[in-house]
């Protein structure tokens, strides 16, 4: 589709080309599949009126960040001759460079009188400055600093307003349904969960939203949108580091083994949007996909000591535990995203109490997310004594003081890391659980407005 101005003597363009709103998109029926690794698959089905034989078809309104090498055009009776992606863009400098050897019109305006004079000039060179031949004399453009309009007869054929995809096809001709597919970066999605925690009832209400962002530079009008939970071509790597005690993320305590009837693509889950929607450029869009009321949840505390060292009292993490199981849980898979937790204040208004990133979680999993640091529950670690037994054995006596300024009793999961597998615990005030070679955990009940102390002696080898 081309908008041509009527050119001619004294032609006045009477009405604006499109007075109302914006120019209609050249896109056809668009289907967009968005992955979570920044890639998206776009399918654009258009009815094209093709001439018989070979013809070059331009495709405006494809993604401005299109990966041109991934384009495929298909349709009945269509053979592809070649595909081109041209990005030589129209600028004044380019216009002048491509006019070398051609003749342009100069329109000089007399500064004093406003009288215009028109001359034809041949562009000899455009290297730094523009050298012109006007009649028999050679001049440099605007060397006098006076106003002069340079009018070009035409725009060179290869210069474009935007990068343009074109496909040369061979066709029998006629109205042909075609499908253009390509990959583009710049579209992405994640999930945002709104979780309202009720401390008294120990329940959560969870609403899940998918959040799409479009930075492709192009609008996708009235598109059929499908979201894929999973990252193609990013697997294969074993986890290098244990993340069980990373302080800030949500964790899957026990991976679930349940499934439901959600559509799948290989090992990925599919989230089709219920209705067609327009994804505008520079837009963030949210659509609801999960709404669960009164799922059971409980809050607990966790503290990790990284090394056998004396530290000032520091806050324990507040942890919220819940399940994604069908019975007694959220009853769905959770695509990776951010869970924001709210809680009602004394007046009943919801207030934000922290957020946590969760990874893609199978249905039936036991989850714990760290929402923040507890103001009133603190742990102080003290090295009571460190003695050398012999040249490579040390004995460290640790004391952990847990204080609780809350009006209710709490249980703190106290963890000591840095045990390297060869550290033995020769004595401890309560039985701990060696959860890994590097870590021991004690589950410590702390009375309301009270204190609890754990002591342990570590026998380390160097």
């Amino acid at each position, binding site marked *: 589709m081309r*908008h041509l*101005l009527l050119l001619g003597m004294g*032609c006045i363009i009477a009405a*604006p*080309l*499109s*007075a109302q*709103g*914006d120019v209609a998109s050249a896109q056809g029926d668009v289907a967009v599949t968005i992955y979570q690794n920044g890639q998206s698959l776009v399918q654009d089905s258009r009815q094209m009126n093709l001439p018989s034989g070979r013809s070059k078809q331009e495709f405006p309104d494809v993604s401005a960040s299109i990966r041109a090498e991934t384009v495929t055009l298909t349709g009945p009776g269509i053979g592809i001759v070649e595909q081109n992606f041209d990005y030589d*863009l*129209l600028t*004044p*400098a380019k*216009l002048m460079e491509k006019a070398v050897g051609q003749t342009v*019109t100069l329109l000089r305006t*007399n500064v004093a009188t406003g009288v215009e004079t028109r001359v034809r000039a041949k562009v000899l060179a455009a*290297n*730094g*400055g*523009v050298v012109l031949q006007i009649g028999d004399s050679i001049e440099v453009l605007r060397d006098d600093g*006076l*106003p002069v*309009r340079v*009018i070009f007869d035409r*725009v060179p054929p290869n210069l474009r*307003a935007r990068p343009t995809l074109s496909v040369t096809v061979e066709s029998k001709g006629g109205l042909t349904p075609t499908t253009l597919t390509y990959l583009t970066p710049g579209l992405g999605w*994640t999930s*945002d969960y*709104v979780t309202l925690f009720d401390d008294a009832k120990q329940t959560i209400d969870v609403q899940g*939203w998918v959040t799409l962002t*479009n930075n492709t*530079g192009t609008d996708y009008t009235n598109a059929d949108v499908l979201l894929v939970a999973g990252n193609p071509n990013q697997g294969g790597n074993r986890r290098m580091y244990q993340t069980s005690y990373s302080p800030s993320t949500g964790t899957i305590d026990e991976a679930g083994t349940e499934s439901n009837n959600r559509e799948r693509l290989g090992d990925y889950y599919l989230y089709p949007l219920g209705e067609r929607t327009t994804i*505008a450029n*520079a*837009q*963030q*869009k*949210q*659509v609801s996909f999960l709404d669960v009321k009164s799922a059971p949840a409980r809050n607990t505390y966790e503290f990790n000591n990284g090394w056998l060292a*004396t530290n000032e009292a520091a*806050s324990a993490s*507040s942890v919220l535990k819940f399940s994604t199981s069908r019975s007694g849980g959220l009853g769905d898979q959770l695509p990776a995203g951010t869970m924001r937790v709210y809680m009602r204040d004394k007046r009943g208004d*919801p*207030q*934000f*109490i*922290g*957020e946590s990133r969760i990874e893609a979680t199978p249905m039936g999993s036991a989850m714990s997310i760290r*929402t*923040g*640091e*507890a*103001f009133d*529950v*603190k742990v102080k670690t*003290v090295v*009571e004594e*460190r003695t050398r037994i012999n040249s490579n054995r040390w004995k460290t006596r640790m*004391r952990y003081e847990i204080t609780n300024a809350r009006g209710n009793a709490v249980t703190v999961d106290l963890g000591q890391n840095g045990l390297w597998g060869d550290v033995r615990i020769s004595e401890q005030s309560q039985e701990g659980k060696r959860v890994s070679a590097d870590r021991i955990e004690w589950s410590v009940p702390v009375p309301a*407005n009270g204190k609890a102390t754990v002591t342990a002696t570590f026998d380390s080898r160097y």
Partner: protein
Amino acid sequence: MRGLVALFLALATTPLAAQTVVVSEEPEAVSLTVYRGEKYGGQAIDPNWPTGYALVTETRTLTIPAGESVIRFEGVAEGMFPESAIVTGLPKGVKEKNRDARLLSPLGLVDAYLKRQVTITRTERATGKTREFPAMITSAPGGAVILQTNDGYEALHCTGLPERMAFAQLPAKLSAKPTLSVITQSDKPVTAKVTLTYMAAGFDWEANYIAQVQNRGSDGKGKVDLFAWLTLANGGNQSFTNANTMAIAGKPNRENNGPQVKPTGGSLELKCWPNQRTHEVPYNLGYFPAPPPPPPAPAAYMDEESDSIVVTAQRMRGESLASYSPVAVVVAEQENLGDLKLYRIPEPVTVNAKGQKQVAMLVKPGAAFTHHYSASVENYGAQSEPMTLMLRGKNTTDKGLGLPMPQGQVMVFENSEYGPLLTGETTLNDRAVGEDVEIAVGTSVDVRMTVTPQSEKANNQRWEIKVTNARNTPVNIEVEIPYELRGKSKAVTKISGVPTWKTTVAGNDSATLSYDIKLERD
């Protein structure tokens, strides 16, 4: 005040169904909960660049027509995290939430008018006469505007003539600011009370304590009037009028932001022919790095309009200033919110754009504190260095405190003949009920310490500490010796695992201690 301002039909947004656009300009009621930013090394709030965030809850009354409609929320904080927005109160819920960031700008206009007609007006410098003619934009706004006129092709602003572009209409897709909108449906026209909740960057708060030392006994015991301001800052351009304002202490977890849309738009960069004049080298744009954040406004040049510090509920002090702590009429109320502490300003207040506000949050006159001078031998040598004066209290009711004390800055005042004067400035971390509260006031010229080596053997190192007191009153001292010591000394006790020398040095006197460090030799 009605939230509904205008109803108009948005054409050409979707060919299927015409959506009615409802614009909600401002909220009727707003509540603001401010969360603290990360402040390293106890620095104060940067009012121009606050690092915390806020939860904003607004109520707006809207008239929603029958059918599908788009509700545009205006007057929200520009630091909004759009993914956190929650809209409730719509009769049939929210179909979609959208945040659009295609901004109305010179660049945005040219982009929207690509292959469309604009009007060019040229003015003759000599006569002032103007001439208008139509032209079509044929290049995207990447450094230039190339126009197709009835004469041929020309480049805007490459002629040296005064010329300007005019556009027939505002493109519907462009907005003045990034805008949040929701799509909703209704069977019949209804008036709905809608609540919009969202998180926004550009806020911060902290406590600002005033510790007024009332008396200081010769035994080191004394009374301190402790007062704290709740200082909150709004670094954005949006004011919150009569807001139900709260602040949260404790540390809710925050994750890095997910993908955000980049606003489009900006100024139109125009580049012309290679070298406009032979002796005029053009400004070569070349590689353009990301623009730096806007520089903070110089704090010293606050204009009168931006009332930068508002002190609410402070009464004039009398002539004889007994205490630096003000008399508070309004004190923020504290309640527990899960594992966090919530402070509520009991009356609605206005949090101005680019403004900082203070309301009292803690008033505890007569708290029991002890004075002592503290040092660690690690930081001392043969040359005498001043020791640090510390105030130590306990956050319990019987010691005159017994309430959560959020992190903040502390100013310590002592009385003098000239009234209360500042003797120290320090910071305090979050202190729960029952914890020790230690305030480092400052160093003392009069109470000094030297640490000198005495002898060294293969497995033993002997040192001597000498503390001199030039004050005419006795002082309590605490010196940490963070090493493994040989032998036992009555004067040295372990505090939190660290051997510490605690003693009292008489007025105008000195005290010494020898200690042996165990050396481990392989």
